């Protein structure tokens, strides 16, 4: 990651150095954020201060002009410390990418100016009761009097919803015939009344603070991102690919951080006394964990290249690769950490206060298969496989 940041504070500092600064702050708070299930506010503030929240905003709008590859490298870096933070960051970048690619004037300049400064954290409001997590349909409809859009929307899970400065919200398009005519509408926090409900006490991903929100308010009609009813295009071109790429980077980072901490423990003077590093069982387990992560890493960058270069993401073989990345990263990153628990045993594999933090990594990574469920993706992949009877690879 050699891209120089040539604006503002970070005149001579690359993105990796900025990510290191955020990771250092995250490291100080990761234990408390996990224990208390609270949002990593200090790390988010550091993402604002370093302007990494504006990473994907073009330089002409005041952003850092970074690429999806930069998002993934930073996602891996942050994931090494805190998977919740890495997911928060990559999902925010996914929202920004939707604005960069699909917002029209005057919203485009107005919003990109704010996002480019790094000050605004954008949360995604796509979950809805009754749609089964299906992104491309919406029950709650936008109402319009021509100049204003009325938003009245309940979402059961909004990551960082209590701390977001703005929201991208999916709703059924005004006067839509079908629930799959979905619009994406932007709202600033001060344009809405936001009522949080329920408690957040999950097994892992505790710092993601993904709460239920009731959003109510009105926004100017020009705050639709993309064509009215045209969210399917944004989902296909931005939300889907960047979600799978970004999540996979966060998960890979988390498993890589866990393996790194285990290896440092084993190589430390105390570790060399406690563990027999010539043990064939231990060596084989380390090998398997490493192999799993190299496989995910290779798949991540192959998929990033496909997304960057393909002219048609909707081709079944391209969709299959994207889904394979998500499913494989979810399974293999979790399995790698599970291997490591066996490798180092009860004291360092299972207890909360071990410096390996395997216990937290395993809990966090358990959500990976559930987060846009692997079961659902396998059903989609079965259908896509039937559409590619020659079995060509992306």
């Amino acid at each position, binding site marked *: 990651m050699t891209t120089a940041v040539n604006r503002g504070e970070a005149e001579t500092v690359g993105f990796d150095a900025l990510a290191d600064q955020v990771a250092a702050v995250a490291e100080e708070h990761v234990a408390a954020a996990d224990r208390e299930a609270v949002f990593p506010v200090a790390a988010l503030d550091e993402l604002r201060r370093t302007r990494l929240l504006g990473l994907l905003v073009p330089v002409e709008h005041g952003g850092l002009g970074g690429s999806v590859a930069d998002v993934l490298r930073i996602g891996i870096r942050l994931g090494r410390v805190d998977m919740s933070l890495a997911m928060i960051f990559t999902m925010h970048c996914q929202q920004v990418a939707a604005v960069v690619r699909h917002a029209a004037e005057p919203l485009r300049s107005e919003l990109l100016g704010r996002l480019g400064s790094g000050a605004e954290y954008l949360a995604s409001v796509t979950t809805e009761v009754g749609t089964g997590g299906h992104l491309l349909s919406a029950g709650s409809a936008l109402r319009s009097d021509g100049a204003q859009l009325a938003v009245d929307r309940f979402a059961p899970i909004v990551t960082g919803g209590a701390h977001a400065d703005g929201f991208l919200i999916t709703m059924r398009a005004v006067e839509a*015939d079908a629930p*799959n005519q979905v619009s994406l509408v932007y709202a600033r926090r001060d344009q809405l009344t936001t009522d949080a409900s329920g408690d957040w006490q999950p097994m892992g991903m505790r710092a993601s603070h993904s709460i239920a929100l009731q959003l109510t308010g009105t926004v100017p009609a020009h705050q639709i991102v993309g064509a009215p009813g045209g969210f399917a295009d944004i989902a296909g071109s931005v939300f889907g690919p960047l979600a799978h790429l970004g999540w996979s980077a966060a998960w890979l980072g988390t498993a890589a951080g866990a393996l790194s901490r285990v290896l440092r423990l084993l190589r430390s003077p105390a570790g060399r006394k406690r563990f027999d590093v010539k043990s064939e069982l231990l060596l084989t387990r380390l090998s398997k964990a490493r192999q799993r992560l190299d496989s995910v890493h290779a798949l991540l960058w192959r998929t990033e290249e496909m997304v960057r270069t393909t002219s*048609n993401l*909707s081709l*079944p073989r391209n969709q299959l690769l994207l889904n394979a990345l998500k499913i494989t990263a979810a399974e293999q990153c979790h399995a790698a950490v599970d291997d490591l628990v066996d490798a180092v045993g009860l004291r360092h594999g299972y207890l909360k206060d071990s410096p390996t933090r395997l216990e937290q990594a395993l809990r966090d990574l358990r959500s990976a298969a559930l987060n846009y469920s692997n079961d659902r993706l396998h059903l989609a992949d079965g*259908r896509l496989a039937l*559409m*590619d*009877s020659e079995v*060509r690879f992306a």
Partner: protein
Amino acid sequence: MDARFTELLVPFLKFAGGREITEDTGLRELGLDSMQAIELLFAIEDAYGIALPDDELNDESFATAGSLWRVVSAQIPEAVA
């Protein structure tokens, strides 16, 4: 588009509400999802005794009745698109 083709489409478009199917009719907007796209593909292939090329099975082909008909008619020797 021939009449057999539009008749094949109708059961898959649950939000069509009895409207006439034209070349511009958006298939997804009227209810065609990915599973139904597979079933529609099979129905078309059975009805016309053809196989649609893998390369044509993408979002653009399934976007409108007209775009799908162009793919289908290209595989029917006697048809006029």
